[in-house]
């Protein structure tokens, strides 16, 4: 009798625990569904319509997506976005790894100081950071022109309009993005380097491995999960570059990105028929690109 009742009680207990677990999950689930899944589905649905801001519009099939590939403004935004991703992701990863390698053996307070310095731009509001950079880049009284201009190092004659010249504007944006992106990877890499199994390093050194071989054959594989996370997060952040563009250039001078173009189409071109559906189509395309790149990164990291 006792042997028969035990599984019954166990299932009841399991059920109660499951219910409790689901109830604990419920708040997060509501947010996840409400702010991620449902908007995503709505976005895909609207991208197939000619919706405007306050009207649901008619189903137009894939015509918004077809139109995207003939829209020179969108294609330019896509190109700029890829330039930002291609330049910023590797440099952020490489620089973070380099800095982390240099500081992770330092003693507590010094290491903490470095971590604070590099992490500061991350915790500072993006608007505050951007305002400071806008002042640095200012054409008329910016500190950068002052330092490299005739009154400073004398590297240039006159001034450079950093944010108003297409030769420099995108590079300036990437530099700001770089400074605000390296903080978290540095902290993560410092932590990952500290967790590398020292017995493996010592064994490799005893076997005559060079420093580079120790890094490449022992440390790097153990840091791969961290690297993958950093790659994915940095890629997504770079694809979603918006605040810097909005605050500094408004998409002008070769700095238009897909994120900014979505905002512009959805909220500024309100007089254009079907602007909401079209902006949603851009969002879907952007999500597809982010998904593809992230999948490639996962695949490569797995092979490694």
């Amino acid at each position, binding site marked *: 009798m006792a042997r028969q009742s035990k599984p019954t009680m166990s299932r009841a207990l399991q059920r109660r625990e499951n219910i409790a677990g689901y109830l604990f999950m419920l708040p997060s689930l509501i947010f996840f569904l409400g702010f991620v899944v449902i908007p995503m589905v709505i976005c895909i649905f609207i991208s197939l319509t000619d919706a405007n801001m*306050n009207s649901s519009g008619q189903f137009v099939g894939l015509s918004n997506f077809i139109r995207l590939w003939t829209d020179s403004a969108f294609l330019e935004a896509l190109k700029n976005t890829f330039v930002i991703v291609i330049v910023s992701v590797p440099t952020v990863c490489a620089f973070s790894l380099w800095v982390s390698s240099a500081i992770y053996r330092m003693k507590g307070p010094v290491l903490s100081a470095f971590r604070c310095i590099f992490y500061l731009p991350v915790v500072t509001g993006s608007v505050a950071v951007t305002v400071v950079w806008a002042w640095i880049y200012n054409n008329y*009284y910016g500190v950068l022109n002052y330092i490299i201009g005739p009154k400073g190092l004398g590297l240039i004659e006159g001034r450079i309009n950093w944010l108003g010249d297409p030769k420099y504007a995108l590079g300036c944006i990437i530099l700001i993005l770089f400074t605000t992106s390296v903080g978290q990877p540095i902290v993560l890499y410092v932590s990952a380097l500290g967790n590398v199994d020292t017995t493996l390093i010592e064994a490799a050194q005893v076997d005559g491995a060079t420093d580079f071989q120790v890094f490449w054959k022992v440390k790097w594989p153990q840091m791969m999960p961290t690297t993958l996370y950093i790659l994915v997060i940095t890629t997504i952040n770079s694809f979603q570059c918006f605040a810097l563009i909005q605050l500094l250039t408004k998409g002008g001078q070769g700095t238009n990105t897909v994120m900014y173009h979505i905002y512009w189409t959805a909220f500024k071109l309100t007089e254009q028929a079907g602007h909401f559906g079209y902006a949603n189509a851009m969002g879907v395309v952007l999500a597809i690109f982010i998904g593809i790149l992230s999948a490639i990164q996962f695949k490569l990291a797995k092979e490694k």
Partner: protein
Amino acid sequence: MKMKKLVAAALAMAMALSLAACGGQNNSSQGSTTPPAASNPPAQSSNPAATGATEITLWTYPVGGWGEESNVQPIMDAFKADTGITVKVDYLAYGDGDDRVNTAIGANEAPDLIMEGPERLVTNWGAKGYLVDMSDLLTDTDRSEIAPAALTACTSTDGKLYEYPLCMTAHCMGINLDAFKAAGADQYLDLENHTWTTENFIKAVEALYAAKKDTVAAVFCKGQGGDQGTRALINNMYGGTFTNAEHTQYTWDDPNNIKALEQLKSMQGIVFDASLEGGDELKLMYQEILDMAFCWNIAQQLDPASAHGDPGKTIGGQEIVCMNFPSPDGTPVLQGGIWGLGIFNNGDPAKVEAAKEFVKWMCASENAAQGIKISNFFPARNTVNGTDLTAIFDGSDSGDIMKEYNRVILPNLGDYYQVTPGWAGARGEWWAMLQEVGNDQDITDSVAAHVAVANALIAG
């Protein structure tokens, strides 16, 4: 276990309730955007019980001093004392105000009242049916007292009044007169009439550049902010136009505009600066970095760069003089600004009536004087129900400046072409075109391409 379940249930309940609370009021009538019939009776009663609503919302763009709570709140307090209706005010910025309003419209959370100009109220939100037709508020006296140009601009082509005009001005440019004098460029100014010819403008820039060997003025083109200045400069230099007289087509590919662009591009001392908007440019003149600002008006003359410094003075105390834009014969056509109130139809007749009550109180009674005063602009009507509004600034610190501006700038007010359909998109094309001109692209091709896009936007 029971405790766990209770806590879990309570957490889930709290979260669900907070989400429901975030959703706002579920007013079934809010979704309607159909304007009420034009035959609605005018709001006459000052008793809140008669209108039914005791609280309405007003979103205001920074129209002169209407952007500051210390100016606006006393007016709202006075309205409440008179009518019992509370007006909750939210202050918009030009940078993101349109986004906020458009998002609110999309979410059926638009304010009851909005303060701005016809380019937004008539051409955009009014034309799309989001605003209430206020023509029933206009009495014969109102029609005779309101400046015809203002009334026309605030009325749609099908005769609906989407903006009740309160104040107006003509945009002009500002110059640092001390810098002009130091460079000997003041000889090119007609300081009696505040006018100059295009030829003298070019000579003045040359003289200023020769004196300082640095940028004299900037054709700002980072965004649309203050673009009335660049449009007026380029249109006036050789008599070009921005739209046709019927406001059915953008015409800035006019050869006279192309000539002006080529002239500006060739001038030392003038830069096409894509890092500046109008607000940035006038601050640079206030800081004595630039010698001219193309984004200027009476509100700036009274409070340069909104820095609360001395009227008509730079940060260093140098004299700022407002000037008409240069034109071939010194007879400019200035770009106007007309501001007033519009009413969103949020589907609640009681709130619409309360909002109409406010519009009448603010724009069509003696209270208009206070609203105009804080705007630092000029009244859109010389009298309100027989009460003179032309002398409201007399005796104040700004009285003499207003009187002078009224004499030399306001009479040159030209066509209010901002009501041309597709206006928001056309503005984007304008500054994108200026950026291309600044980047040495072919001017004629660039102008033609962007005008074509702007005209395509007219069709919607």
